[in-house]
């Protein structure tokens, strides 16, 4: 059995880089898919609204763990053997898109209806209304809850450990398997997650206060 050493801590910190990478992929992918989802949710077309709403319900009603299993083991059985990072990236994009889509829909709807009417009366078309009047205001509303959701993403990346993606949580398990000092190791793992998440939490709270003060 190995003695717990400084090298193990270095190993954990290095693994945390994969946690960060997966979080960034999840956020960027989630944002790229989530914005169209949010816009579809508030679209005039019933079909678009229905599609987006169906997607959100499906994903929000499915454990992320199962999405991970499906994209890694499920697609693997079908002959599409994905790298764990790719499978995790896809799963987290699917997951984050549903939640960001729903968060951002709320932010778009939080912009007063009168802003639509005023810009309509000035002759702006729908695209111009979104681009110049509605989305800039929705963005301001969206920043605090979006940053808050990023904390959830960072913590949930630990689930990717189940498909063999060696991020922070999986690295903790590996170190534990060789040293068998679970309390010390998982305390260190928790501390690293905290260091990643705490600044985001603080940022979310500060931004929220500022958003309210600006009203």
């Amino acid at each position, binding site marked *: 059995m190995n003695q717990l050493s400084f090298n193990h801590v270095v190993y954990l910190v290095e693994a945390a880089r994969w946690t960060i990478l997966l979080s960034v992929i999840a956020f960027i992918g989630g944002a790229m898919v989530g914005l169209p989802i949010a816009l579809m949710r508030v679209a005039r077309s019933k079909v678009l609204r229905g599609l987006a709403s169906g997607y959100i319900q499906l994903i929000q009603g499915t454990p992320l763990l199962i999405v991970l299993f499906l994209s890694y083991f499920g697609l693997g059985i079908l002959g599409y053997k994905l790298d764990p990072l790719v499978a995790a990236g896809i799963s987290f994009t699917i997951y984050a898109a549903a939640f960001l889509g729903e968060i951002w829909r709320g932010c778009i709807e939080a912009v*007063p209806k*009168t*802003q639509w*009417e*005023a*810009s*309509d*009366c*000035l*002759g*702006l*078309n729908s695209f*111009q209304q979104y681009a*110049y*009047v509605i989305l*800039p*205001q929705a963005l*301001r509303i969206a920043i605090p809850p979006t940053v808050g959701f990023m904390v959830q993403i960072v913590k949930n990346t630990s689930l990717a450990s189940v498909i063999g993606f060696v991020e922070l949580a999986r690295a903790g398990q590996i170190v534990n398997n060789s040293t068998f000092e679970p309390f010390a190791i998982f305390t260190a793992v928790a501390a690293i997650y905290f260091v990643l998440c705490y600044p985001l939490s603080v940022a979310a709270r500060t931004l929220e206060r500022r958003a309210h003060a*600006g009203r």
Partner: protein
Amino acid sequence: MPDAKSPTGESVISVDKVVKEFGPLRVLDGVSLDVTRGQTVAIVGRSGSGKSTLLRCIAGLETVQGGGITVCGHEVGRPGSAARAQLRRDVGMVFQSYNLFPHLNVERNITLALTLVKKQSKEEAKKRAAEVLSMVGLTDKIASYPEQLSGGQQQRVAIARSLALQPQVMLFDEVTSALDPELTAEVLGVMEDLAHHGMTMISVTHEMGFARRVADVVVFMHQGKVWETGPTADVFANPRTAEFKQFVGSEL
């Protein structure tokens, strides 16, 4: 009071037996109204009489269930974006809650539609913004954000923003209802100027003094109908219905 303008008699707005329903509720029940070029019309009545709804129908913000509205030759209330764009070019609307864009400064609030809709260059639009701001007496607020302005100033910016597009008709929807008397006076002053310069306008208002002083025609609405209408002086001097008598009495 001498009238500086000369109505040409050309019909600009024609509302014909309009019916508007919100679910089972009939808000407008066969309303007809004609406005000629240069006329100032004041629509008065209690809350819930349908006066704001009528104005929103004329602005094309509501679809109607019956009858027809024509504004500057464009049919309103029928779906179709081409007709709507035409209408937007000719009709300006000012709201009770100002509805300035809070994330843009005063100048950009005004130039936004000039550059996007009228396709003016930045320089042209800025020049026009300066012009209309001086008309409402707010030249010094060009770089301010809406939240830095008083309600009266915001409303004057909103009027300037509408005027910048050179509409043929201006619609005012209870534009002073959220303002205290002092700020109300400065906004009404701007509207009075406009009326004297020959702007065709319809104003839904609770300001009886303004209606008496400025309007050529008064429309009293009650229960979704035009209850009483006519030249301002006549209507106020000889109220024909008990409802209008009571309404005018309660306003004094």
